[in-house]
C-alpha cells in the first residue's frame, strides 16, 4: 500500500466528494448518451445475479403459491355460498316447472290433445355468405345422403335463421329471415296476436300487419306461427324492439352474422308448393 503524507490524504479525502458528485453527473450524461452501454451493463449484472435469484425464487414461489391457494380457498367459500343460493333458487324453479308440467299434462288429457311428432333434423355447415339472387342468404355444404327439401326450416342453436330456398346435389341455399324477400308469419307470444315479419336486408326485420289495437310490446317474445302451414308453431324467433322512429323491429335470437352450423328441420309441412306443382287455373269452358 502506498504511504501518503497526512495532509495529502486529507486533501484527497476532501476532494473525493466533489469529484464523485461530478462523476455522478457524468454517469447521468453517459447513460443519456449511450443507452446501449447501460443496457449491456445491466444485462451483465443480471446475468451474474441470475443464479442467486434462481435460488431465492424457489421459496418465494412456494410462499406465493400458498398465498394464492389461501385466496383461492376464500374465493371458493364465496362461490360456494353463491352456488348454494342459486341452487335453492333453481330448486324453486324446478318445483314450478314440475307443477306446470303436471298441469300441462292434465290439461292435455282434458283436451284430447294429439301431440305433434318429434321433428327430425340434419345439420349442415355454412360455407359461404350471400351470393345468388338474394342479398341475405347462406350456402350450405351437404354431406352425401343429406337431401333437404325446398321450404324446410333452418335454425341455428338459438333460433330461427331462415328457409331452404334452393337445393342442389352438394349444396343448398338458405334464405335468411333478414332478406328483403323474406316474409314470416309470427305470433307475439304475450298477446297471441299475429303479425308478419318482413326482412329489410338490415340486421333487424320489421313487424307488420299486427291486429288493430294490439301493438307489439317492447321486449315481447316473437315465435313462429303455424298459419299457412309453413312453420310449426312456437319456434323462437326474437324479441320486439321499437326503434326511435316508431318502427317495430325484431331482434333475432339467431346470430345471423356468424352462422357456422345450421339445423335443417323436417316438420312434414307442405305449405309451400314447388312452382311446378302449382296448377294453372284452367280457363273455364264456355258454354
Amino acid at each position, binding site marked *: 500500500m502506498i504511504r501518503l503524507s497526512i495532509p495529502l490524504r486529507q486533501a484527497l479525502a476532501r476532494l*473525493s*466528494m466533489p469529484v*464523485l*458528485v461530478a*462523476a*455522478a*453527473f*457524468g*454517469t*447521468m*450524461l*453517459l*447513460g*443519456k448518451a449511450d443507452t446501449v452501454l*447501460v443496457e449491456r*451493463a*445491466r444485462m451483465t*449484472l443480471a446475468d451474474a*445475479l441470475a443464479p*442467486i*435469484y434462481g435460488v*431465492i*425464487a424457489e421459496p*418465494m414461489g412456494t410462499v*406465493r403459491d400458498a398465498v394464492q391457494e389461501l385466496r383461492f380457498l376464500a374465493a371458493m367459500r364465496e362461490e360456494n355460498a353463491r352456488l348454494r343460493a342459486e341452487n335453492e333458487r333453481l330448486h324453486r324453479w324446478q318445483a314450478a316447472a314440475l307443477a306446470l308440467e303436471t298441469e300441462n299434462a292434465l290439461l292435455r288429457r282434458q283436451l284430447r290433445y294429439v301431440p305433434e311428432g318429434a321433428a327430425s333434423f340434419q345439420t349442415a355447415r355454412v360455407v359461404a355468405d350471400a351470393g345468388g339472387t338474394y342479398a341475405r342468404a347462406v350456402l350450405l355444404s351437404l354431406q352425401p345422403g343429406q337431401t333437404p327439401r325446398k321450404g324446410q326450416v333452418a335454425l341455428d342453436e338459438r333460433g330461427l335463421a331462415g328457409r331452404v330456398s334452393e337445393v342442389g346435389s352438394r349444396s343448398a341455399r338458405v334464405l335468411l329471415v333478414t332478406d328483403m324477400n323474406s316474409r314470416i308469419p309470427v305470433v307475439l307470444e304475450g298477446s297471441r296476436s299475429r303479425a308478419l315479419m318482413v326482412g329489410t336486408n338490415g340486421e333487424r326485420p320489421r313487424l307488420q300487419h299486427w291486429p288493430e289495437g294490439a301493438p307489439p310490446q317492447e321486449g315481447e317474445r316473437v315465435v313462429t306461427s303455424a298459419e299457412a302451414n309453413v312453420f310449426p308453431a312456437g319456434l323462437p324467433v326474437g324479441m320486439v324492439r321499437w326503434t326511435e322512429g316508431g318502427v317495430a323491429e325484431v331482434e333475432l335470437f339467431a346470430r345471423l352474422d356468424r352462422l357456422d352450423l345450421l339445423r335443417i328441420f323436417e316438420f312434414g309441412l307442405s305449405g309451400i308448393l314447388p312452382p311446378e306443382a302449382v296448377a294453372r287455373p284452367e280457363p273455364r269452358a264456355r258454354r
Partner: protein
Amino acid sequence: MKGRPQPPMGLLRRLDALARAAFPAVSTALLMVLVSTPVGLPSALPAVTLGCVFFWSVFRPGTMGPPLCFLLGLLQDLLGFAPPGIAVLTLLLTHGLVLRIRRFLARQSFWVVWLVYAGVAAAAAALGFVLQAVLSWRLPALAPALVQFALSAGFYPGVAALLTGMHKAMRRAEDLA
C-alpha cells in the same frame, strides 16, 4: 530492559479488521440484491439502500466512504430501471449531508434520527423526481416518488434495528481486540 514492542498484527487480526471494515458495504450490496429479487412486490430497493447508507454514514462513516456510496448507487441504478446516475447522486449527497450533522445525530434518540431520516428520504424522492424529469424531459408521475418516500420512511425502523444489532456486535468485537 526495554518494553517489548507491540507485536505486528497477525494475519487473522488483519483479516478480522478487514472484514469489519468491509462489512457495511458488502452487507448493503447483498441486501440490495436480495431486495431486488423479482417477487411481484413493489420494489423496496431505493428505500433499503438509502436506509443502509444513512445508517452507516451516521454510525460508522469510516467504512462507508464516498467511493463506496458511488459504487452502491451505481449498483442500485443497474438493478433498478431508472436512468443511471440518479441513485449515485442521491446517495452521495445523502452521505455528504449526514457527515455534516452526524455529531448531532449520534447523540439523539431514535425518534429524532427517524424524523431526520424522513426529511432526507423526502429530499431524495424529490431529487429523484426532478432528475428524472430533467433527464427524460417529461414530467413523470408523482405517485412513484410518493411511494418511494413512504417506503423509505417506513422501512427505516426495520433496517435500523437490524443494523444496530450488527453495529453493537462489531463494537464489542473491537472492544475485545
